[in-house]
């Protein structure tokens, strides 16, 4: 074989192995073989540059601490970096081909909502979500998404990056918990004071009034005293309802479902039809979770009747796969969620759900009513 052809053969073999440093010599003849040699030398330059840039990209891709996914328009993972596979406990390369929705917790397809928002905004979106590891551990994450165009491919890919915000969420939840617990303590104190002092004193006055009404002979005074006694009976009943609303004793004694049934039974709007169902046995709930869910249900019912003018309210409790679910629904007027989102009532509901790492899926349609779908993971409870 010609010496130059041997050199070409050797160089091409080395290029195949990823060794792009050496070049071939061009002879003074500048013949066709030299033309090929020149082409091979330039090919070596290009391959070296591409390899360096690919290695550089791979190093960045796999060195960042954020989880990075490249996903196609159907949500199938085309690539995931080392951090994503490490944090989600998947073997190297095993995330490829899976749907991003497999890693997400959501009632509606999370990826579809990202895609929709990206199409609307056409550039970059950011939000919060939950990712699950292969072993089922949930990781709260901040998600950022943007379009990613690879070479000249027409098919648009999406670059998703997710940073673990567990610590931030824990801190937020601690603050939320502290605020909510302070509110509850204050309500508890107020209910106790009202019950132990005012209600007792009113009961004593009622006793004197009713006794005097029995003893008096004057019909006019008797009538006034009996009316006063009726008035006091109503005030004491209202006071007891107030104390019950502030701190329902049945919640501590008999649990959430019975306390909710009692609340609905005592509810002042008698024309409202309540449907309360418990689909299966619920585990024992922490006092904080029980009171939070109770408050949320109270808030929902009050809003449904006062603002929504509903006459049907549904409450369903269920427990499955370590997740407690509470589905609240009404047949009221409904409201615009975006407008209501800034209100204190809804914010309180969201804060209480968030403080237990829960999810609130809220739907409301004008003229068709409102539903709160609450999911609380109980393996996360302290």
């Amino acid at each position, binding site marked *: 074989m010609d010496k130059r052809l041997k050199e070409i053969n050797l160089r091409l073999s080395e290029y195949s192995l990823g060794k792009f440093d050496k070049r071939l010599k061009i002879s003074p003849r500048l013949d066709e073989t030299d033309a090929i040699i020149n082409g091979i030398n*330039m090919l070596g330059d290009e391959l070296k540059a591409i390899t360096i840039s690919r290695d550089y990209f791979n190093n960045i891709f796999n060195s960042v601490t954020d989880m990075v996914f490249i996903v196609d328009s159907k949500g199938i993972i085309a690539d995931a970096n080392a951090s994503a596979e490490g944090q989600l406990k998947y073997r190297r390369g095993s995330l490829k081909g899976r749907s991003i929705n497999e890693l997400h917790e959501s009632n509606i397809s999370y990826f579809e909502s990202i895609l929709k928002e990206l199409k609307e905004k056409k550039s970059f979106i950011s939000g919060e979500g939950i990712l699950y590891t292969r072993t089922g551990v949930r990781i709260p994450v901040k998600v950022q998404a943007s379009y990613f165009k690879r070479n000249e491919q027409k098919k648009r890919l999406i670059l998703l990056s997710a940073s673990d915000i567990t610590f931030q969420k824990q801190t937020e939840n601690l603050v939320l918990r502290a605020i909510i617990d302070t509110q509850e303590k204050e309500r508890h104190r107020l209910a106790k004071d009202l019950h132990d002092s005012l209600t007792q004193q009113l009961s004593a006055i009622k006793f004197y009034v009713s006794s005097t009404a029995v003893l008096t002979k004057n019909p006019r005074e008797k009538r006034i005293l009996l009316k006063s006694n009726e008035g006091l009976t109503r005030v004491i009943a209202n006071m007891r309802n107030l104390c019950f609303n502030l701190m329902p004793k049945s919640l501590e004694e008999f649990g959430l479902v019975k306390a909710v049934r009692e609340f609905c039974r005592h509810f002042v709007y008698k024309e409202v039809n309540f449907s309360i169902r418990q689909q299966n046995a619920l585990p024992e709930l922490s006092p904080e979770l029980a009171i939070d869910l109770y408050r949320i249900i109270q808030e929902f019912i009050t809003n449904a009747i006062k603002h929504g003018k509903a006459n049907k309210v549904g409450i369903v409790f269920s427990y499955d796969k370590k997740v407690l679910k509470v589905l609240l629904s009404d047949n009221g007027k409904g409201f615009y969620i975006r407008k209501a989102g800034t209100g204190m009532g809804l914010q309180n509901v969201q804060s209480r759900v968030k403080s237990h790492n829960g999810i609130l899926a809220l739907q409301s349609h004008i003229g068709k009513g409102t539903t709160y779908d609450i999911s609380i993971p109980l393996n996360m409870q302290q």
Partner: protein
Amino acid sequence: MELETPFFHLRIKDKILVGTYKKNIRINLEIARAIVSTRISFTGGENFPAIIISTGVISIDKPAREYLASDEGTRGLLASAIIVNSAFSSFLGNFFLTVNKPKKMPVKLFTNIAAAEKWLQQFID
């Protein structure tokens, strides 16, 4: 109007800039920058279509190829006709056009000058 440099010969003929590379020249980034800078000085900042006779070029390294194809490297050129009249220069020219084709400037390979001049007429005001 003509100019002789260590790397090439430049002249303007019938509103076309003609650049002929010297024999056995190996172009690296430094030489490529010098070529562009000299060319711009020679034309006084005026834009011309160009014929580039590259038969003397033995090699152009990657940084030089990228620079010559860049906006900076094609400054002052309305279009380029590259003359390749050997297998060697044809190979080199084809590689340049395929891998480092300038984005803003039309460029085409020719084996004879007359055809190149004819094609460049469309770029003369």
